[in-house]
């Protein structure tokens, strides 16, 4: 015989927000993009 039904609290929602901080580093200094930007800034003043 199954036990009588009983109300239980539901498992609360819990979000993983730390995963949003897993990011690639900026590679501009490695690809030469930083140098190009500097030159561009020089040209346009």
């Amino acid at each position, binding site marked *: 015989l199954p036990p009588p039904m009983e109300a239980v*609290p539901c498992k609360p*929602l*819990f*979000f993983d927000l*730390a995963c949003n901080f*897993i990011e*690639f580093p900026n*590679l501009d200094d*490695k690809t030469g993009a930083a140098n190009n930007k500097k030159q561009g800034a020089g040209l346009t003043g």
Partner: protein
Amino acid sequence: MTYHLPSCQKMSANKENNLVQAYVELNKFCQNGDYERALKAAGKVLQISPNEQKAFHCKVVCFIHLHNFKEALSVLCNPKNAALASDLVFEKAYSQYRLNCPKDALDTVDSASELTPALKELRAQILYRLEQYQECFNLYRDIVKNTDDDYEDERKANLSAVVANLAAINQSADLPTFE
């Protein structure tokens, strides 16, 4: 001797050029979220120059995005990579957290020299997993107060979950209410 210098310089210039090309490739895959290819590109950079910290960082991020937390933790913990991994405390703790090792993850977070916003957010989630709800609640209250991003609703849901657990443990506790 006079013949050696130019050839060495040429080799070094070639290597430099290859390295930049490999990084350009890596950057492309990172930006369009192609983690499999980015992983290979990061490996190529490290083949040319094994001490490239940024390429190593990308490799770890790729493993995490591919949900290969075991491999991420393995490369981070390899003694050979100690110097490359020293700044990646958050990535290490997050991998441990996802591998269901919240105690190790907490130790890693607390070993960091500075509790950055990322480490704080992760620390709160670890405390929840460890069922240390009171400390978790205090930390979330601090984070909610001092953070302004697109995840305020989700964070409030997390805070509610902590409060629900506190209430379940201690029915008579003086719990906060939400207005």
